[in-house]
């Protein structure tokens, strides 16, 4: 048994028949072809699967694809526009905010939301805002620096 869903991903319309039990992350990765968001834990802890749903960061491993019916999804692939990196992407690059890169798509999506809600966060606020995203490589310090840089550039 399948259900038809219609949604927007990175500004483009998508429509598929999916099993009701299919997770949004599997739909994005395996049906719609957006492999930027990753699967790191399947339990909502690591945040590697973070995407924006109607503008709000969600962990797409803990949502069914059918719950995204009629909604607007932004993944890491849709963040750069016309070949220009989003300021958060650019800042992660400049500040070496990633090593293996596996958590990075989710981390960038979470950082983007953090800055939308709080354009001038303190270090504590940055760390708190990224608490739902795990990174095993960086020790977080360069990620904190990246968010600071993105905030400073947006404020400049």
């Amino acid at each position, binding site marked *: 048994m399948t259900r038809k869903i219609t949604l927007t991903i990175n500004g483009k319309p998508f429509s598929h028949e999916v099993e009701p039990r299919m997770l949004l992350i599997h739909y994005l990765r395996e049906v719609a072809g957006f492999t930027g968001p*990753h699967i790191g834990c*399947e339990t909502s*802890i690591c945040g590697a699967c973070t995407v924006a749903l109607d503008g709000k960061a969600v962990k797409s491993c803990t949502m069914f694809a059918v719950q995204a019916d009629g909604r607007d999804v932004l993944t890491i692939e849709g963040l750069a526009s016309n070949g220009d*990196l989003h300021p958060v992407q650019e800042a992660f690059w400049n500040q*070496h905010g990633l090593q293996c890169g596996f958590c990075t798509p989710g981390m960038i999506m979470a950082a983007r939301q953090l800055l939308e809600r709080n354009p001038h966060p303190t270090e504590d606020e940055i760390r708190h805002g990224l608490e739902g995203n795990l990174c095993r490589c960086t020790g977080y310090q360069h990620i904190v620096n990246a968010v600071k840089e993105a905030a400073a550039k947006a404020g400049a």
Partner: protein
Amino acid sequence: MATTITKTETLVGKSIRRQEDPRLITGTATYVDDIKMPGMHHACILRSPHAAARIRSINVQPALALPGVVAVFTGADIGSVGPVPCGASLPGLRIPPHSILAKDRVYFVGHPVAVAVATDRYVAADALDLIEVEYDPTPAVADPEKALEPGAPAVHPEWTDNIAFTYHQEGGEPEKSFAEAEVVVKQRIISQRLIPTAMETRGVVADYHGAEKSLNLYSSTQIPHLMRTLVAQMLGLAENRLRVVTPEVGGGFGSKLNVYAEEALMGFVSMRIGKPVKWIESRRENFQCTIHGRGHVDYYEIAARRDGTVLGLRLKLIQDLGAYHQLLTPAIPTLSVLMMPGLYKFRNISADIIGVFTNCVPTDAYRGAGRPEATHGVERMMDLLAAELHMDPAELRLINFIGMDEFPYSTATGLSYDSGNYAEPLKKALDIVEYHKLRDQQKQAKAAGRLMGIGISTYGEICAFGPSPATPAGGWESATVKIEPSGKVTVMTGTSPHGQGEETTFAQIAADELGVALDDIMVVHGDTAVVQYGIGTFGSRATAVGGPALYYALQDLKKKIVKFGEVLLESDDVSFAAGQCICNRTGKTVSLAQVAGASYRAMKLPPNTEPGLVATHFWEPPNFAFPFGAHIVVSEVDRDTGQVRLVRYVAVDDCGNIINPLLVDGQVHGGVVQGLGQALYEQAVYDENGQLITGELMDYALPKATMVPWIESSHTVTPSPVNPLGVKGVGEAGTIGASPAIVNSVVDALSGLGVRHIDMPLTPERVWNLIQAGGAA
């Protein structure tokens, strides 16, 4: 802040943002799970829920009846597929046969029992629920000390003492040193089992081509070439018909320095079904079935004179091996023994390792691999000795360091430390924290009823693995440099970077040597069909062993460039610099691109010279490299909750010459936080029946951004004489330095209560209980 490079300038030593990042920050990199192939099937693996059991029967028929399921295989089907390899050898080592699927027994929770293959990932998972397995559970043992007790359940029935090996090493005259000692301090110290937790779990895609008898294996690994050799043996394939590709690898930390059952199993499945097949490890599987790290119970004794001079060190090391040997399992504790003297002039050493089987997943190399355990031990013992002698722990270290005029220094464990100035990073760290002021503040805090502590660790590590005779599979590394006809440069390294950034640092080295722009260089790795044989990335070796291989390949190439330059410039006095050949008499120049084009067109060859500009170098290091450093932690313990707060973390590391400071800082930060995770939060917990209690990220406390302090990282630079780049390696340093600095600081904070030692992790509960007990452990 990184610099953006647009023009050729000296790049080695500069903080340059990474070449690999554009694909990673845009979500366009390809990890194993991103691979899709026509006709690709999906595999899920049924695993034992018991730590020890006999398998009475397996019925796969209900699973096979599920639409979409194409095959189910069990241990009865795998025929001649060879065992999961153990690459370590020790005298008398007992090696249990390690089949890729369980035959008649299971030995740990997560032991693979059957594999279901379906056209869809969800259907493959559904199929597992339909496989009927009858188990007869048998008694299990998960604690290595309990496993050694008489009458303990035998993990492998043929070896009732559960001992896989014993190993003794000594140097100097340990008995005499203890007999003559004025002070002897003893302590039992635990380095708990940890779960490496790379953010990307393991995964394999296998694609067999029957007509060619060739197999392409895509695996998230740190060692593509070694995997090819070993998996070819397991599957009975010709090695030249097995291609291993490591696409993007989402972290390893040693957990992917291995050959697991699943690589051969997926190869077997693809060969049987004649289609590509993908298996992606779930996080639960990752915790149950990918190797764990550490797992020591150590009994230390230190002998010293009253003036603080250390004389001898004794260690009885009980290593929890788990149920099997993975690739390097039994070798890891021997690294602890090698490094047990640390940075000090211990001339007398005695160590006994007991390698113990338990009904748990095997332990193996996890970031630091034996060296964090050794450093934690010796650095705790130095603090215990300082407390016993009422000496300042910094002073005790300074009087016992190997002097900077004593290098190369032969240790009592048989190593030759390459170079060092061990006092310098400690003095620098003491200056940064303003140590004497801190001690005054500590007194004031104590007077005010607060528990403030200062912890020091001065670590040394063995890395840049390493001279081949000292390694199980060759310790050299390889590089090929190709200058293409257009003058663009391709570097192929036998290392297998997975986050460390060698696509950038190796490009920096090549750019400087050839005088070309960074963007004109492409660094290729991780495909055995493309890259010459290599050893891989682990043990802080990629830059320190792979870097020199690249350096020497570049030197060979530069000689050839000059030869072609001489032909083009019709001169015998030509030099090559800044990307062009110049005639030193006329000043006429030709660019590297012109030289490269001429070398391939080969209209006129220099004497005794082949066409083209390609050079390959396999570099054998003459010795290991030995980085060192000093970490100081200031902590405060909440008397009411037992919560530890790290107020300051100062790291002064010496990894020799630095190619990219930004990347080195990244390695230090990440390393420190993994050591911090061990010190404060992380622990793999098995219950008495061998059930893994910490089976998910919900139960295993990986450090989050809020759980770590700002790390004040700086360096001293003592070049290594072992290699032409003077580099030493930095991947593991942070992890090795961190845990003793943190634990020493908390013990210091609680010393007024009579606390002299605490085992990791320093959970609030453990610390609170100590405080309530007035310091009695």
